[in-house]
């Protein structure tokens, strides 16, 4: 099977969506309303291409001046003014379009492609070309002639347009690919999304994917479940056991946690889930580093909490044994969080991850129907990378005897499921822990009292005299 030569956009997520990049020598329409990020996408690709030895020709059919464009692009990290006029040429064909028509624009650009030896051509303002065309046939001719000349020169073409061309439009039928960028409101929050509407000659991750515009330009987050529909590595199926950080819990679990496994601790606020997590992370070493991926406690608060448990978090961070990645805001994109988690794991060779909490992570989801698929893909990927995961799930009921799983699918994603509850015993409030599920191992199903004393966490078998369910 023949594989077509690719032209990387330099936008990591976009290249992933395109399964390696644009098809070199092909032509694409990039469409989206003004402000959607088309120009950023095209220029980011242009500068990346120029940095890798390519030559770029940007032809505008718009009245807007190039200097205004440069001023605006100069706020983005990829912009490099020394490339302009050298590897990247900006020319305006507006005057030619206005006074001489589409045919002359094609001639002008054809000559420029060969004169500049351009390997990427960006035509900004296809809408203007369309309004100049007397009929659809003229636009089709404009696109087909231009892409014909470009393809002959081995030049990839991007046509930028702010009109929403539909799938049946003549422009779409002509080009090899269509990339659409849009913005949608979720409550008061606005989320940018990108979609590959057409990709000829290449597989692609279909559907809508979230993206954002940062100081580094466009960042695309492929939907995690489509990106990792198969984990990037075979499941390590490593049956090595590692310590959970609490000796008595290891005993209950039949000898610790499997090194490639996911454990979920469910419980109400204040029950001690984070304490369990910090004990788990305290086992991290420089050789097997840990990651705290949290949504609630700031690093400062975590250090204080660590002190109270006899864990020198600052020292561990300094030595490289522990990384704290705090997600302070509720703003953000679900796939962005997933990508960030995986990239920290990758960069720092993380072996233990504590996610506090999964409910905090999924709060930013714009589509709740995907949460299970998202978490399943994320956890499978972490397992495949040989990471031991401990995660928490916030439960609403403080003293409920009703135990409702967060959702039935979640328990199938995790290997081990633990439930923490408060129990009222006479006049005392006690913390308890029960193991609900351990994959591929025998475990002690009793309910245990969680005792936190002298910086230590102990699990004590609850006494026979205690009622087995919390009393009213």
């Amino acid at each position, binding site marked *: 099977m023949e594989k077509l030569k690719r032209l990387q956009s330099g936008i990591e997520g976009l290249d992933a969506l395109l399964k390696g990049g644009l098809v070199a020598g092909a032509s694409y329409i990039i469409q989206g309303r003004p402000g959607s990020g088309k120009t950023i996408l095209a220029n980011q690709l242009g500068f990346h291409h120029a940095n890798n030895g390519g030559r770029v020709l940007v032809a505008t059919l718009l*009245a807007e001046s190039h*200097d205004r464009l440069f001023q605006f692009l100069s706020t983005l990290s990829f912009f490099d003014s020394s490339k302009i*006029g050298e590897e990247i040429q900006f020319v305006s064909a507006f005057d030619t379009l206005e006074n001489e028509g589409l045919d002359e624009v094609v001639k002008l650009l054809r*000559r*420029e492609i060969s004169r500049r030896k351009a390997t990427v051509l960006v035509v900004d303002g296809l809408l203007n070309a369309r309004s100049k065309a007397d009929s659809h046939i003229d636009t089709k001719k404009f696109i087909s002639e231009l892409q014909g000349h470009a393809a002959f020169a081995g030049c990839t073409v991007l046509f930028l347009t702010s009109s929403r061309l539909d799938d049946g439009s003549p422009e779409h039928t002509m080009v090899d690919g269509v990339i659409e960028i849009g913005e949608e409101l979720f409550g008061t929050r606005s989320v940018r999304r990108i979609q590959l509407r057409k990709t000829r000659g290449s597989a692609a991750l279909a559907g809508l994917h979230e993206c954002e515009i940062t100081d580094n330009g466009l960042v695309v987050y492929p939907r995690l479940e489509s990106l990792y529909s198969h984990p990037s590595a075979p499941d390590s199926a490593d049956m090595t056991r590692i310590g959970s950080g609490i000796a008595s819990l290891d005993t209950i679990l039949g000898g610790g946690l499997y090194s490639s496994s996911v454990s979920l601790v469910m419980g109400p606020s204040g029950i001690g889930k984070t304490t369990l997590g910090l004990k788990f992370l305290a086992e991290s070493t420089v050789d097997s580093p840990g990651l705290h991926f949290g949504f609630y406690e700031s690093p400062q608060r975590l250090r204080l909490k660590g002190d109270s448990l006899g864990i020198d978090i600052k020292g561990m961070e300094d030595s490289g044994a522990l990384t704290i990645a705090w997600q302070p805001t509720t703003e953000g994109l679900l796939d962005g969080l997933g990508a960030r988690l995986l990239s920290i794991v990758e960069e720092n060779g993380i072996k233990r991850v504590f996610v506090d909490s999964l409910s905090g992570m999924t709060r930013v989801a714009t589509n709740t129907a995907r949460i299970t698929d998202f978490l399943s893909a994320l956890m499978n990927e972490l397992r495949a990378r040989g990471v031991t995961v401990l995660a928490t799930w916030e439960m609403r009921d403080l003293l409920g005897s009703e135990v409702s799983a967060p959702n039935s699918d979640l328990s199938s994603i995790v290997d081990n499921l633990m439930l923490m509850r408060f129990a009222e015993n006479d006049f005392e409030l006690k913390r308890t822990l029960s193991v609900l599920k351990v994959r591929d191992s025998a475990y002690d199903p009793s309910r245990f009292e969680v005792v936190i004393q002298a910086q230590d966490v102990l699990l004590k078998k609850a006494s026979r005299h205690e009622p087995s369910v919390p009393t009213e």
Partner: protein
Amino acid sequence: MDYNKVTTILVVDDEYLIADILSFALEDEGFSVVTASNGRKGLDALDRVKPALIITDFMMPAMDGLEFATAVRALPSLLQVPIILISGAQAHIGMQRPDLFDAVLPKPFNIDAIIAEVRKLLHLA
């Protein structure tokens, strides 16, 4: 402003908006302005008009400002005509070629600075 005869200035820029803005400003000062959207068209225009001064952009299709100025300087009749280069990214290239450009002004440009430079090069008070 009262000149004995109308002084013509050739403005060469592919960006229509910039050519337009420059034209209006120069016309307000009493000059006659001819515009061309690239160096090639600028050379064509020289067959028809004899400007007292030329203002050119650098980055243009068909023929850029450097190629255009070189071609102009090769024409004996235009050897003495002052050429002003207006460029953002390529200003440094222009500065190294005083044989081609009498002045190099940055982009985004200051219209008053351009008018002042034009008057200076044309020895107008």
